[in-house]
């Protein structure tokens, strides 16, 4: 069997396991659909209490939807291999012949699907309940920007995943550390330009910043106070996606070799 066929099978199997595992029990609908709405509602009421313009409520709904993917990247990708080691699966993955990239790509694909349900429900329900107005004037551009954002964000997840392979409890802490602070610097709930050019420019290193900013521009027009032109942000996302995939590949090889040398692929409770 060619390596391509093997890796395709492995990736699809991992994606299937993740999707089925996440949606097997009906309670996931309650938790994945209703919980994110609570956060969105709180931020919308907050803006209302401050007397902000209605466009900001739209930013909150969009940001709330995108948190689904960011949370999935942090907890379902970055910290995942560490967790797999804790339950004893990692050594079985490592003994198997498939490429580690196929495994991570499968995890990403499965996670993308389940997070998309959470994101879409937040978007639809948030828009309906809070009467948010957004107009999709260029659906192709929006689809392209969204796809590039996902490639770059999950590419980043793959890099983090390989790095976290080597860290014990710290992996959990780093994921924690990257939750709210990234909501802050990436402008999940407000135009990132408001943070000033210096901070915004640094924040573009996190692909979700660029993706959010471009999508805000495509959905809310001038009110979104875009940081850079959409085409430029899309190009930067494409470059980031390619860079993260290459980096993930390199980093996985290095980390696996280091893990084998130090005997850390099978250690638990570090």
């Amino acid at each position: 069997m060619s390596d391509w066929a093997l890796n395709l099978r492995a990736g699809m199997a991992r994606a299937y396991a993740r999707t089925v595992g996440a949606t097997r029990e009906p309670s996931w609908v309650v938790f994945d659909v209703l919980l994110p709405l609570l956060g969105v509602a709180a931020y919308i009421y907050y803006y209302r209490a401050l007397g902000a313009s209605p466009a900001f409520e739209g930013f909150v709904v969009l940001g709330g939807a995108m948190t689904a993917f960011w949370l999935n990247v942090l907890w379902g990708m970055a910290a995942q291999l560490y967790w797999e080691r804790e339950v004893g699966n990692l050594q079985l993955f490592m003994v198997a012949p498939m490429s580690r990239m196929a495994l991570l790509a499968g995890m990403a694909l499965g996670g993308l699907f389940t997070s998309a349900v959470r994101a879409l429900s937040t978007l639809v329900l948030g828009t309906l309940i809070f009467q948010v107005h957004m107009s999709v004037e260029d659906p192709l551009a929006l689809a392209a920007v969204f796809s590039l954002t996902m490639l770059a964000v999950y590419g980043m997840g793959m890099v983090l995943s390989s790095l976290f392979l080597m860290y014990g409890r710290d992996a959990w802490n780093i994921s924690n550390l990257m939750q709210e602070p990234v909501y802050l610097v990436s402008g999940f709930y407000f135009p990132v330009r408001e943070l000033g050019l210096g901070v915004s420019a640094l924040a573009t290193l996190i692909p979700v910043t660029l993706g959010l900013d471009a999508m805000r521009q495509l959905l809310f027009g001038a009110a979104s106070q875009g940081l850079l032109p959409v085409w430029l942000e899309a190009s930067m996302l494409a470059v980031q996606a390619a860079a993260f995939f290459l980096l993930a590949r390199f980093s996985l090889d290095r980390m696996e070799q280091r893990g084998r040398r130090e005997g850390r692929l099978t250690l638990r409770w570090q």
Partner: protein
Amino acid sequence: MAPAIEVRSLSRVFSGRGNTLALDNVDLTVEEGELFGLLGPNGAGKTTLIKILCTLLLPSSGTASVLGHDVDADAKQIRKRINMVSGGEISGYGLLTIRENLWMFTQFYGVPGKVARERIDSLLEAFGLQDKADAKLRTVSTGQRQKMNIIRGFATDPELIFLDEPTLGLDVSTSIAIRNYLREWVRERSGRTMLLTTHYMREAEELCDRVAIIDRGRIVAVDTPAGLKRRVGSGSSFLIETTPFDPEPMRSLPGMRGMTARPADGHMNIRMVLDDESVIADVISSIVSSGARVIGLSKNEPTLEDAFMHLVGRGLE
């Protein structure tokens, strides 16, 4: 033809608080088609050796090759042709069914869908797990979970399988069924090789073509179970039943090769391997001088346990 496993001067040091020498200059050859056992107490280095051979761990020095490929340079070539199972492992996804878990792992080895399904069905039947095939993994018992993991190892039809304590913690009837399957699997088709680690003497004695005894990271002896037992020599293996006392000081008696003592029904059963028959007189006087009484004494045909005591100087437990 290259041996299935060839290990030369292999050592592994774990660094940390004080370096631990887990494997110390190990040499070992396992031929293709062999059912080979690694017998040793906990912490002897069995699992470390398996991890190195399975490409999970790199040696600190020395070389190891599996199916003709070096474990360091050609890990990928090895992985396509091997599999491993650890006893007592709880891996797998609890929300997936047993069948789904097994299917997923076959896909990591690129087994075509139809072949995978047929193989999984026949293995589920062979291990009496077909009733639980569609149960979520988290709802099944520990024993069933362990069986699933053994099936997982065989479902990819490896040329060489590593089994690390496969029957650990399983009940007697399940252990017997699994041993039967393992024996069948190796014999069924030529070219299949199995490396089994265990600390159950009977398992090693029943199953293995050859056994390596490993202790404190060193291979002490490699032979057939019969060959190992012959090393003990007839007339030097004894079982003594006594009233309770502390038998530990007897370990240092001249001529005492190894000893295990187990309390039973208010008595003490002491199994020992001696240099020769004449040492038994000193043993009995030592018991009597400790204030205990000898209730029974019998001379036995040496077992693998005696061979182990003879070589290592103590029992496995």
